[in-house]
């Protein structure tokens, strides 16, 4: 398929591997922030084919993984109500709360529906006026424009039976939290290309200036990831720290200005809890005062639910790049995608799930 097959070309991949091997003289640790890139790396064995001097650290860029336990518990409480139709992207349904997941609620008779687009929730709300339709608004800057449009349309069309449980998170503050962490080993970042397609590249300039870390905007196919790594290594070896765009076919410097205008209309920046990491200042979006009536937390009075994370799960260390998934004692034993302890094992973008899908046999062989 166009724009996919060409970026899987093994001969061009070899050129990039050779170029990286030629350039590298010192050990460098590069974090791919986005879970989609983690999967591309593990699925294609990119980390195993790189020179030993280049280490890839998997970052916190998986919205399913970082949605706090208490938000999941709020979703479960709302979804269990008889008058509610709870709509969500599919990958949130298996994320464990304190007591079950959205599948458990559905099995017990709750009306939980998987939707492809938030606009589907608008249609459901219009066709079921006697029900309260709630959309689970999670994700990074990539899904936020879609979710913002749902709230905007609800207001425009006067839908009083549609609301959103909001747990939106932002990439740049997460990068800052990682790089500012005292034990951080990260020398450079691959920034998530599609987040930049929406938000542009300028918001990374202050991070580069303050922390002197290269940040390379990177795509998701194997050649994209390798070119991002190559550009990071070249910058690090020359002592440069710049924002570089290795994904120009999809990312323009200004980003998508129509989407940014809608985000500014519907959302405002807030502090946000990240599952396994804790609170990161100014790292989220909530509904702005003009749209507060569409906030499901206040509509269903679940704002005071507070819970602690389970202790056995080391997802927080995985999300901060402090350990690799297979260094967790529970990996593949007490924690599998069928019976996950934490969200990093659930999500199609989670690092633990990537290791389980593509590397558990290799891990078992090494450990055995």
């Amino acid at each position: 398929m166009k724009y996919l097959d060409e970026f899987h070309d093994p001969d061009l991949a070899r050129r990039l591997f050779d170029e990286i091997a030629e350039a590298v003289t010192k050990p460098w640790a590069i974090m791919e922030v986005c879970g989609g890139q983690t999967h591309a790396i593990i699925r294609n064995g990119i980390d195993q084919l790189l020179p030993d001097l280049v280490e890839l650290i998997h970052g916190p860029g998986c919205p399913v993984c970082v949605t706090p336990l208490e938000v999941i518990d709020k979703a479960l409480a709302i979804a269990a109500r008889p008058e509610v139709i709870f709509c969500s992207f599919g990958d949130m349904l298996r994320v464990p709360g304190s007591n079950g997941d959205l599948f458990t609620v559905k099995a017990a008779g709750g009306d939980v529906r998987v939707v492809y687009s938030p606009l589907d929730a608008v249609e459901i709300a219009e066709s079921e006026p006697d029900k309260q339709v709630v959309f689970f608004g999670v994700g990074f800057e990539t899904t936020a424009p879609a979710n913002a449009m749902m709230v905007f349309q609800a207001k425009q069309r006067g839908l009083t039976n549609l609301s959103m449980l909001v747990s939106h998170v932002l990439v740049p503050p997460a990068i800052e939290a990682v790089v500012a962490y005292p034990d951080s080993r990260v020398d450079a970042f691959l920034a998530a290309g599609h987040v930049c397609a929406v938000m542009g590249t300028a918001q990374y300039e202050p991070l580069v200036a303050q922390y002197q870390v290269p940040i390379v905007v990177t795509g998701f196919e194997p050649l994209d990831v390798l070119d991002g790594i190559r550009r990071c290594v070249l910058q690090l070896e020359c002592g440069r720290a710049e924002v570089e765009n290795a994904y120009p076919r999809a990312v323009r410097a200004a980003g998508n200005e129509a989407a940014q205008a809608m985000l500014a209309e519907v959302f405002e920046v807030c502090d946000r809890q990240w599952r396994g990491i804790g609170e990161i200042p100014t790292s989220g979006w909530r509904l702005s005062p003009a749209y507060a009536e569409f906030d499901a937390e206040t509509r269903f009075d679940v704002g005071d639910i507070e819970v602690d994370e389970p202790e056995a799960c080391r997802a927080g260390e995985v999300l901060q790049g402090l350990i690799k998934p297979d260094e967790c004692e529970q990996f593949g034993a007490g924690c599998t995608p069928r019976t996950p302890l934490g969200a990093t094992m659930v999500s199609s973008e989670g690092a633990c799930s990537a290791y389980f899908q593509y590397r558990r046999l290799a891990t078992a062989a090494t450990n055995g």
Partner: protein
Amino acid sequence: MCLGIPGRIMEIRHERHTTMATVDFGGVTKDVCLAYLPDVEVGEYTIVHAGFAITRLDEESALQTLAMIGELGIIEELGPTEAVEAEPASEEAGQ
């Protein structure tokens, strides 16, 4: 939810109080909202997240990236002597 893949715009129409398109993802078609990419045209490729087109794919940039990667290591492959000899030839070709 975050895995945006390229799709080709097949048809554009006005419905659901906005502009929608049928987008082909390698044989699977989906309805996609074009509210954030209003000037995209049939035949162009776009990246879609959560049912919304968020950016268009630029063919020229894609070809440039592939050409740049394809040229990596060319000088080393030719070897020092051949590389020097190759230079005037490429200049002639450019004239």
